[in-house]
């Protein structure tokens, strides 16, 4: 891989080739970057992924439809609910299965809580990469409460395996609703404090404003999705525009980047959008908890899941972008092909194009603002 760059580097200049990773505190997971720098300014930063490739898609062809659900957790272990939901929706499409409304509401509640947890990690680690260590720990403290809530719900704190083909695995425990509402009351106040601590801090703003601007056309062309796309000004959200599950019945706003302190589509927009989305998710969970219908939480699913031959494509608005599952069935109990399209994969693809001209410190800010996680890229 180094051969790509070494050819172009003259030996008597100030150019250096650095290996950023794969073990590095600020690349989010095991990702390697080959960075060709001229002093402090980057000429080219080439991402080198694949260190976390676990052939999950190949495993999907061997374990059968219900058995694949825990593997979807590992596709994105920071926001595992979305991966679960995407796969469940795809297989339910294949089975032409209607899931009961209570299950849809529970899915929405668990997913939005997971979105808050994932965004807390995202903005926290972003602040930490910029050098402010305190916001990360405050965010993780809140995330601990969410983890406790989800543990009460489904028994796991990171890889949930909560959604099932046909519904969800467990019902709400007693008192969970009140616990969550109390947490959300506290969380809304925490967001205000968090904003005051770091969001508009002068040094923080100077580090992020107008850095690595990704215009809307470039974002669409490179296939960015989710918060990255919206921060560049493109107003599209799968929950609102191609609604699924309980979202048609829930009212929420979709924040779009508009250059809060700098240019549209810079690192600060991507960061602040996630802060705003956390507030919106809290609103959604509140509404959903208040309107959750009674009834079954799991549809009648045959013991052996054997959909007829066909294919299905599901879209889910994950914390990192649009997660899509493309499941091809050949009529047997084992899937013929399972494909997980994740938001981080395309986000990583844009780093090469945006990085020339940045400084090394800005590269760190760019990677953090794109909110990539290695398991989503490599699967």
């Amino acid at each position, binding site marked *: 891989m180094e051969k790509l760059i070494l050819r172009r580097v003259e030996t008597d200049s100030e150019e250096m080739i650095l290996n950023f990773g794969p073990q590095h505190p600020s690349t989010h997971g095991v990702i390697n970057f080959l960075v060709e720098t001229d002093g402090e300014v980057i000429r080219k930063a080439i991402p080198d992924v694949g260190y976390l490739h676990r052939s999950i898609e190949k495993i999907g062809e061997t374990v059968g439809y219900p058995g694949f659900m825990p593997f979807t957790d590992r596709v994105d272990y920071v926001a595992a609910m979305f991966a679960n939901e995407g796969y469940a929706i795809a297989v339910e499409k294949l089975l032409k299965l209607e899931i009961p409304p209570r299950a849809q509401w529970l899915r929405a509640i668990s997913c939005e809580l997971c979105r808050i947890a994932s965004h807390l990690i995202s903005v926290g680690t972003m602040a930490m990469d910029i050098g402010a260590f305190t916001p990360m*720990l405050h965010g993780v403290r809140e995330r601990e409460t969410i983890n406790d809530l989800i543990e009460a719900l489904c028994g796991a704190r990171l890889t949930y395996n909560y959604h099932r083909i046909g519904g969800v695995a467990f019902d709400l425990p007693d008192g969970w609703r009140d616990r969550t509402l109390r947490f959300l009351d506290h969380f809304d106040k925490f967001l205000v404090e968090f904003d005051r601590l770091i969001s508009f801090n002068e040094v923080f703003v100077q580090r992020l404003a107008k850095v690595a601007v990704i215009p809307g056309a470039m974002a669409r062309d490179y296939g960015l999705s989710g918060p990255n796309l919206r921060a560049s000004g493109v107003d599209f959200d799968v929950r609102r525009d191609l609604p699924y599950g309980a979202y048609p019945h829930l009212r929420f706003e979709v924040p779009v980047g508009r250059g809060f302190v700098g240019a549209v589509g810079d690192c600060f927009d991507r960061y602040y959008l996630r802060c705003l989305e956390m507030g919106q998710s809290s609103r959604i969970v509140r509404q959903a908890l208040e309107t959750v219908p009674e009834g079954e939480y799991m549809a009648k699913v045959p013991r052996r899941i054997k959909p007829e031959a066909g294919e299905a494509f599901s879209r889910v608005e994950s914390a990192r972008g649009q997660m899509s599952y493309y499941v091809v069935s050949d009529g047997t109990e084992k899937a013929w092909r399972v494909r997980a399209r994740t938001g981080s994969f395309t986000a990583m693809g844009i780093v090469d194009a945006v990085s020339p001209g940045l400084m090394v410190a800005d590269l760190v800010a760019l990677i953090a603002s794109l909110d990539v996680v290695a398991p989503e890229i490599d699967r």
Partner: protein
Amino acid sequence: MTNASPAPAKSAARHARRVLLLTLAVGLGLPLALFGGVLVLSPISGIAPEGWSEGRVLLLHALAVVVLAVVLVTFGAVISGMTVWWEMRVSSRMQSRVGYNRVGAAGFLQWIADAVKLLLKEDLVPADADQILFRAAPYFVLVGFALTFVALPFGEGLIAADLDVGIFYVLSVTALVVVGILLAGWASNSKWSLFGGMRAAAQVVSYEIPAGLAAMIPVLMAGTLSMQGIIRAQGPWPWQWFALESPFAGLAFVIFFTAQLAEGNRTPFDLPEAESELVAGYLSEYSSFRFAIYFLVEFGNLWVMSAVAVTLFFGGWQVPFAGPDVFAAARGAGAIPSPAWWGLEVLSLAVFVAKTAVVMNLIVWVRWTLPRIRVDQMMSLCWKYLVPFAFASLVGALFWQLLLTSVPAAGVVTGLLATASVLVGGYFFLRLTYRNIAAVGDRVDLSNW
């Protein structure tokens, strides 16, 4: 972890008390013992007993100086260890964590455990690193740090050497640290370390200028470079401190504080060791004792920075109600000073330590709140903002001195005004903090130490 059965509860309480006593013994006793050693040994280097040949007297002096140096360096190390404790404790509270709480009461002896751990680690020298320079670099840094302790005024008579050029000596000796950092970065033979070393060198050398200029303003106001002289030119009360007496000195304190943060590689200026970018920057390849030296010097520098700032701007060890005549009266006439004098000396030491601790707390607070500034922003901050402002305040201080010769009351008036505004501002700040905490639903709980 430990089972909590009711029977050993009493012995658990006894154990906790024992730990607390041990902590206090070490925490207060160790520095005092070392300091006592300094006090006893400093006069020996001037004693010339009759009947001894010149050579023997010289030998005695040399021995005393060597022992004194060792004691001073140990004192520096102990101080830096305690600074580590304070920083970690404060940072853990700011981050809603518990912090050190195992080794010693409130984790006070953790730094001893850390030091022992670091000493027992494997000492790696990379095969491709420059063998001599790699090994020598930490010692440059250590020398630069330890030499400053010679001129720090801990109390009215508690200074290892009251040099006539005290502050000049301190500023020049701390510049040795940059040599050590640059050597470390280059000799490690690693691109990451080189990056860190170059950044550090650029940063420290640039910020020497505003620091030196800002330090000249108290010198101007005191009329002497000697540390004790600068302190004696101030008074014990807040409105007599240089920082509050003259608005230009107040500005100079801000510039000096910022520049010292940069020289000590503290966030927001900690690019050379930016954890999230360069892992440990110029320190990446160091392990065991060599790393311990860098670690020690960084935290010890915190103390030295604060001590110098207190000396220059906040009146040093000046005790309220105890002017120089009180000290002279307490000393008595004999060769050995009376206990009252010793008591006053310890009081001045306590005042100095308290003020230094407050400034140190400010540095720690800033570190854990602000993010990191980028290289080019840091350079532009230094050259485009700090240096012009330092020059401007120097010129302003010149004019202020002229004003004072004709209107001596101006100093008192501005001092009182500044003190009043600081007190009022402090009250409002605390009130706002309390309100912010209450708004999130928390409460102020100081019992959790």
